[in-house]
């Protein structure tokens, strides 16, 4: 067998990918070939250095999940209509100058197309709802964002890009209005600024909320499980206390107890469970495990206390 073939088999030997016959041949070759023995040692060293896969940090996972939710919402809404009904954006002021420049460019391109000989109906771009409203000189309320170039090569005279035009809407109404609740849920889940998400959850954490719908609860549970900001998660947990005990709320608290890296959150979950007497068999099982396995001494102590109290009842 050619020497090169044995060299190709060395990494397969390290990763246990050779069959018995191949392994025997390779080991026989190694006994007589210093070069291949060195290759073997170096690959073994490489695999040790490479180590095992690392778990992604919790914060990274939370960020990824949140960004995915936002992206999926855009996917869903863009398949229903071009401009989403309850689209909510916050534009950082420092981008406004850059955006004004892009608006001028967009306006120039749109006007140029508009005076093209071809009929407007043949170009989808001319059918954009807000095209006629764009003006570089007026203080239009319309905000331009999320500009993405599809074809930025203007050598053929054409460019193509997409953008989203949004108009701020001022809303005032009852916290029990479903439309208001819907907006607050969106803000809680999708606002980029954690301060805005915190305000949204604080608004929802009120005893004035008499008729919360399931979307609110789902948004709070999602925020509790996935928001990367400790304050938002903390307030979401507090807000959920206003909801009747059910399996969803219980599961959310157990999720926090099992997965939240912040000990204060895990303590808050235990307190919430204890205060509402949520100690069913599944909760008991998790707390009994936490008595021994949690890395925080106080959590182990609290878990034990809640378990003992539950067993005495």
């Amino acid at each position, binding site marked *: 067998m050619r020497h090169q073939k044995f*060299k*190709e088999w060395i*990494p*397969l030997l390290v*990763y246990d*990918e050779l069959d018995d016959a191949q392994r025997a041949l390779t080991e026989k070759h190694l006994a007589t070939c210093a070069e291949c023995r060195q*290759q073997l040692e*170096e*690959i073994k*060293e*490489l*695999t040790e*250095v*490479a*180590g*095992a*896969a*690392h*778990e*992604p940090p919790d914060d*990274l*996972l939370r*960020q*990824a*999940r949140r*960004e*995915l939710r936002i*992206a*999926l919402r855009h*996917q869903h809404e863009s398949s229903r209509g071009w401009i989403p009904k309850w689209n909510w954006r916050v534009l950082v002021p420092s981008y406004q100058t850059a955006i004004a420049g892009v608006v001028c460019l967009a306006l120039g391109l749109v006007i140029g197309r508009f005076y093209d000989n071809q009929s407007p109906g043949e170009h989808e771009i001319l059918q954009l709802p807000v095209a006629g409203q764009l003006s570089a000189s007026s203080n239009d309320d319309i905000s331009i964002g999320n500009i993405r170039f599809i074809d930025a090569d203007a050598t053929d005279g054409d460019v193509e890009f997409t953008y989203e035009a949004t108009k701020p809407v001022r809303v005032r109404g009852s916290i029990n209005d479903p439309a208001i609740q819907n907006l607050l849920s969106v803000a809680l889940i999708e606002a980029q600024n954690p301060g805005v998400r915190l305000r949204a959850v604080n608004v929802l954490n009120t005893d004035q909320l008499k008729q919360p719908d399931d979307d609110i609860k*789902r948004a709070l549970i*999602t925020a509790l499980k996935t928001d990367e900001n400790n304050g938002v998660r903390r307030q979401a947990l507090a807000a959920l206390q206003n909801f009747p005990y059910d399996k969803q709320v219980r599961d959310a608290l157990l999720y926090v107890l099992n997965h939240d890296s912040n000990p204060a959150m895990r303590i808050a979950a235990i307190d919430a469970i204890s205060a509402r007497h949520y100690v069913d068999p599944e909760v008991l099982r998790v707390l009994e495990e936490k008595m021994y396995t949690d890395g925080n001494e106080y959590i182990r102590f609290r878990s034990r206390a809640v378990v003992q109290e539950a067993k005495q009842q």
Partner: protein
Amino acid sequence: MDLDEKELIVGAQRGDKTAFEQLVYRYDRKVLALAVSYTSDEEDAKDVYQEVFIRVYKALPDFRFESKFSTWLYRIVVNVCLSHRSRLQNREHQSLDAIKDEDGRPGTLELVSPETPSDQKTFGKEISRHLRTAIGTLSPQQRLVFTLRHYEGYKLKEIAMLMNCAEGTVKKYLFTATERLRDQLRPVFE
């Protein structure tokens, strides 16, 4: 596939957002871990993660239970990884040869042998950094095969199925990947 997972898939196919979310949460930690190992960059990893699950979202109505969901999902992961272009596109062309000393002249890797525990920790971090750089010099196919075999524990036969290529091709990729990594890291180990 357990019944619970089948119910989640069917629910998600019917438009149940909660079911889709639960389905994602079953796999997304592992997908993100693979993406981090593959890209060596957290922002790139998030891009890969998002692209994977958007494709899952779009294609899920067409999933016919003809294979395991995890297999179907990881085929998507493989395709996304292979087509992913790093935010730092010159990362793939960096090599340890590009290391320069303070005067901008080509430098050599000189790692002082660790003597104290804190030295050892720093040394370990340095090695990891060099390894990540070296992995970044591999071609997408080599990098993917190495990531799936070494970090994810897939057998080469399974990787071949996921990548839709011959097992012999995957073996070549693994061989070339390990040869390149050995070459890149030899100055570090010596």
